[in-house]
């Protein structure tokens, strides 16, 4: 089978999957967890517990603050110590619930056994209710509430479910381990998602630097399909190892050969994309009644003595993880939450993990040193690298000149912040830094214009009805 890939741009950083052979291990539960109320895209959740309340593991502690929002559960059992602002990994204050841990007592309905449950109910409403109340969000990076993605707007139909197992960020290996160790559960999660979406076809996309995953999942799906028709439509697709293969828009282009229009949603071309870890979380919520209270993160870096793939409770302080792993690596100069291309640099090690924390990466000063920017030599590397077909050299110039019209005409708003341009620039120009500022301004202008247009239309409608 020919290797599928997206059609515009892309780069080939060294994949550095040095933690690939480390099995997922449960990290000890910390003495205190700090659960953020704003760990998904959308409105922050509203707390439903009070200071002093006793909570069990899996018990809801905050309810959605709107449709695009998610339930949040206690990841431990213990006592609520405080509810209030706490600094996240970049030092920004976010509302959080502090819980002092006492034992590990789960809510009763959760099935904690390892038994694989492949049968699931026909009732989609019940399944959706479990996904919603389980607090499932997209674990591929964006933490978009999953139940929203599974509710397409009226008139739009999903044709193919794409399961993102690319893990195109260098260093990260959680998805790799999920497929290898929990492939059956992921496959059941995929079948559940297919039923909810009413699609016959699903593609699990895996980059070809993970041949073990590809072989294992083919085997798993074949065995399940022999037992039940519900697994018939799942195919495993090997993808070319290229960054950002796992970008939602890139993956749709690679798998379905369709491109989502600027500003559009994947469903407009008949696609819904979910991450491998999300499919696993769906399995746990629907089949085991287990809400999203833990996630897996890769503890890695060339300067890290022992690599790990940890399963951690949501809200575990980063400093606790580092302590468990043997302390701060000697040469580490930068700690990144996530991968080296799109992850965020940590300035506050007391911050706690969130549902979407996928890795803790330690880089040395030499690995992450930014060379001083020199003159653009117009080599075009940035434009060749951009997976959205943008021209960063031009956008950078327009952004520095403050030309917002020019930025919008040249599709600044389409930037997915993948960092391929800045990675490639031989003059070490901080292209993405500059473009991110430009994009924010353009988005502001576009939103204001849309709001004004809406207000004008409403005023016109009101005037017409008054006549």
């Amino acid at each position, binding site marked *: 089978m020919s290797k599928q890939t997206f059609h515009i741009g892309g780069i080939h*950083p060294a994949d550095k999957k040095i933690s690939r052979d480390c099995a997922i291990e449960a990290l000890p539960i910390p003495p205190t967890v700090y659960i953020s109320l704003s760990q998904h895209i959308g409105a922050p959740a509203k707390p439903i517990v009070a200071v002093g309340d006793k909570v069990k593991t899996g018990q809801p502690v905050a309810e959605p603050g709107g449709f695009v929002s998610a339930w949040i559960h206690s990841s431990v059992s213990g006592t609520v110590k405080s509810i209030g602002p706490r600094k996240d990994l970049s030092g920004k204050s976010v509302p959080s619930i502090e819980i002092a841990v006492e034992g590990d007592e789960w809510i009763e309905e959760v099935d904690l056994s390892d038994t694989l449950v492949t049968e699931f109910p026909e009732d989609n409403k019940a399944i959706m209710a479990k996904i919603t109340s389980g607090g499932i969000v997209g674990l591929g990076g964006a933490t978009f509430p999953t139940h929203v993605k599974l509710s397409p707007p009226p008139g739009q139909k999903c044709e193919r479910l794409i399961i993102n197992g690319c893990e195109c960020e260098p260093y990260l290996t959680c998805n790799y381990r999920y497929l290898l160790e929990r492939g059956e559960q992921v496959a059941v999660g995929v079948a559940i998602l297919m039923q909810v979406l009413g699609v016959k076809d699903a593609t699990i996309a895996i980059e070809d630097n993970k041949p073990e995953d590809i072989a294992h999942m083919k085997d798993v799906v074949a065995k399940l399909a022999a037992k039940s028709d519900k697994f018939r439509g799942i195919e495993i697709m090997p993808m070319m190892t290229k960054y950002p293969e796992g970008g939602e828009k890139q993956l749709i282009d690679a798998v379905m050969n369709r491109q989502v229009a600027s500003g*559009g949603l994947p469903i407009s071309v008949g696609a819904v994309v979910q991450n491998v870890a999300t499919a696993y979380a769906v399995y746990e919520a629907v089949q085991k009644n287990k809400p999203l209270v833990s996630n897996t993160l890769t503890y890695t870096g060339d300067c890290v003595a022992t690599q790990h793939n940890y399963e951690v409770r949501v809200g575990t302080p980063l400093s606790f993880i580092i302590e468990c792993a043997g302390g701060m690596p000697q040469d580490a100069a930068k700690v*990144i939450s996530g991968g080296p291309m799109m992850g965020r640099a940590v300035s506050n090690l007391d911050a706690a993990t969130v549902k979407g924390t996928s890795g803790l990466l330690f880089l040395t000063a030499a690995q992450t040193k930014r060379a001083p920017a020199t003159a653009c030599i*117009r080599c075009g590397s940035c434009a060749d690298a951009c997976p*959205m077909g943008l*021209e960063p050299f031009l956008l950078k110039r327009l952004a520095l000149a403050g030309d917002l019209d020019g930025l919008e005409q040249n599709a600044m708003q389409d930037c997915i912040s993948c*960092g391929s341009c*800045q990675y490639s620039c031989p003059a070490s120009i901080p292209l993405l830094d500059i473009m991110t500022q430009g994009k924010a301004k353009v988005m502001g202008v576009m939103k204001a214009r849309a709001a004004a247009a809406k207000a004008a239309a409403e005023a016109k409608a009101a005037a017409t009805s008054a006549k």
Partner: protein
Amino acid sequence: MNKLIVSPSPHIHTGVSTTSLMRDVVIALLPAVIVSVIFYGLGELLVLAVSVLSCILLEWAITKYMLKKPSTICDMSAVVTGLLLAMNLPYTTPWWVIVLGAVFAIGVAKMSFGGLGQNLFNPAIAGRVFLLVSFPTYMTTWKMPQGLFGADAISGATPLGAINEAVLQHQSISSIVSSYDYGSMLFAGIGGSAGEISAIALLAGFVYLLVRKVVKPWTTLSIWGTVALVSLLFWIGNPDRFTDPVFNLLTGGMILGACFMATDYVTSPMSAKGCVIYGIGIGFITLMIRYFGSYPEGMSFAILIMNATVPLLNRWFHQKKYGRA
């Protein structure tokens, strides 16, 4: 505890820098440089040294004393300009002519536009054309090489010069063309500047640049394709008046120009489509000058003329954007 570095993503970089790219270009030029020194002897070495050193010194002096900015000579682009300028000069060029060429290349064509990345015209070609129109005698008198191993010096014309002479005197060119052996043109052996002496050495360097992904082949292939096709049509029409495609591809600055000068990042288009149009322009203009102009060779003029169209080509041709028809 040690302090942590905090910065926005991405947190890693390819490691490719302007300096490493320029170093690759220098490495790619080395085979041709070595062949030319073997072929032309110490005179060639002197031309190379004077050109490279004066380019570096000039850039250093201009940044330090006129612009009062940090020096940019470490990016090695002045070395590339110096080498390319030298490879466009006869090995008999007097040192002061070379220095004047460097002054024009670095001082006028490069630094007065704002330095690397800002120049509209390729500095080395600008320098060469400046010398060609100012000192035509030095630039067009060729002595057949003595070489390091000391054969007898014979005065002679380059193949293109001989053809040009014949055409001006309304003579048939077939006897002149047949006096050249394409095999020796390919390897080494015809008169000319360092950049004309060995097609195979230049091509080896170009392949190195392609393999290292320093340059893309579109401009070069477009130039060669245009030259081959257009000269084929003329040659079939009148072989006594017009030279054949192989002759045109192997002579003059066709290989050095197409591989190393027209592919200069700063002065060539950004998009593949732009590069193809740019290449067609260079190939066509070169051939028209060779066939109908009073100069024997037109590569330099063609590249300079097409340099001027690059801003327009960059405005017309853009990358194909995702999700936008």
